[in-house]
């Protein structure tokens, strides 16, 4: 099972119109080289599922600025005026989802569950048009799973086989997304021999990773 591919190859597998889950939180834990290469290859009409659209020039914000995103499913866009402008201008669709609900909807897809029963959003505009399920006299919203064609994952370290390790707050949505997409493309700060990442430190097991982006050859 050879997983290592170069950056251009990895991104060339993503068609226009693809549904992408992109790890990260305000750009932290978002795969930087994959983002730049998507911009370079000019993928269009993307649906992006991610916690936020970061800031202009950062993470998912780069895709928004390059006008590659048709639709974004996210918990907030408040830090990126360009996303707000595109939304108000009707250029980009924005579906706002409470952050904890977003995490569980992604998890539900990856874990084979039919949806999420959450108290968050009950009685608010978030509940509009959604089914409510009563359990033990309490109301919960039925929030459907969120699937994707690709998950773009950023890890601290990957081993040769694709086991991924995360660091501190750069973990965030990455492990959840690696479960929820048909194809997982991972970019790691470092790639190390098998065994360097011990079993208990693995955040995403190798079997979930389809492609691991090769490091650039370092010069000089």
């Amino acid at each position, binding site marked *: 099972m050879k997983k290592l591919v170069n950056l251009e190859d990895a991104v060339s597998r993503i068609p226009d119109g693809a549904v992408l889950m992109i790890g990260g939180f305000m750009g932290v834990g978002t795969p930087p080289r994959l983002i730049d290469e998507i911009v370079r290859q000019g993928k269009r009409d993307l649906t992006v599922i991610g*916690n936020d659209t970061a800031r202009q020039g950062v993470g998912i914000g780069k895709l928004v600025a390059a006008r590659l995103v048709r639709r974004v499913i996210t*918990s907030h866009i408040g830090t990126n005026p360009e996303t707000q402008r595109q939304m108000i201008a009707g250029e980009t669709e924005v579906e706002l989802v409470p952050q904890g609900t977003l995490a569980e909807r992604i998890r539900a897809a990856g874990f084979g569950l039919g949806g999420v029963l959450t108290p968050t959003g009950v009685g608010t505009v978030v509940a509009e048009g959604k089914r409510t399920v009563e359990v033990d006299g309490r109301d919960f919203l039925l929030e459907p799973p969120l699937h994707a064609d690709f998950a773009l994952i950023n890890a601290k370290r990957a081993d040769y086989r694709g086991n991924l390790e995360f660091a*501190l707050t750069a973990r965030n949505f990455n492990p959840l997304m690696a479960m929820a997409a048909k194809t997982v493309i991972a970019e790691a700060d470092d790639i190390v021999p098998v065994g360097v990442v011990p079993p208990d430190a693995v*955040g995403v097991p190798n079997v979930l990773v389809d492609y691991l982006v090769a490091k650039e050859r370092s010069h000089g």
Partner: protein
Amino acid sequence: MDDKTLIAKRVALEFKDGDLANLGIGLPTLVARYLPAGIDVFFQSENGIIGMQALPEDGAASADLTDAGGSPIGAIPGAASFDSAMSFGLIRGGHLDVTVLGGLQVDEEGHLANWMVPGKMVPGMGGAMDLVSGAKRVIVAMTHTAKGEPKILKRCTLPLTAVRRVDLVVTEMAVIEPTDRGLVLREVAPGRSVAEVVEATAAELIVPPDVGTMPVTA
């Protein structure tokens, strides 16, 4: 003392030893500076850590360790990091002892609106809806009025963050406790009168005989 410092200092008195707490961005973040001595409070950040603290020095920033706004932070010895599902499991599952959030409006039912102004500001709810739905205690830390207009109303006109009744509202003028009987005025800021607070509030306030003065240290 400016209004924000006053509010932050008063809110800080609400913490107990061992609390797990989440502070919203802006004013609520100030609260961490004024914790009473001798108590350990563990601060969670939505992006996946318990034990965040201010970055000790600029040069110590790690690209993998930021707050929910993406700014570099530090961490205490004994911090714990985790994914976003766990982070919100802690919040939604009732493990968070207290959250301090900013507010746009609070009403007589204790409902909070703090995430959008239709047609004007649609930043998204981020973690606010989960925090208000799930925290054991929700404290709203906000200025009493905005551009002279009351923010404490009979009924919120902005979209609600949750239908859960918040536990305490702390402003630069007063401490108000939403109860099932309505909004009870608990404390008035030093130098303010009950009449001033009532005047600046567009909701009915229940004023008990024993309204205290906000215990805020210099």
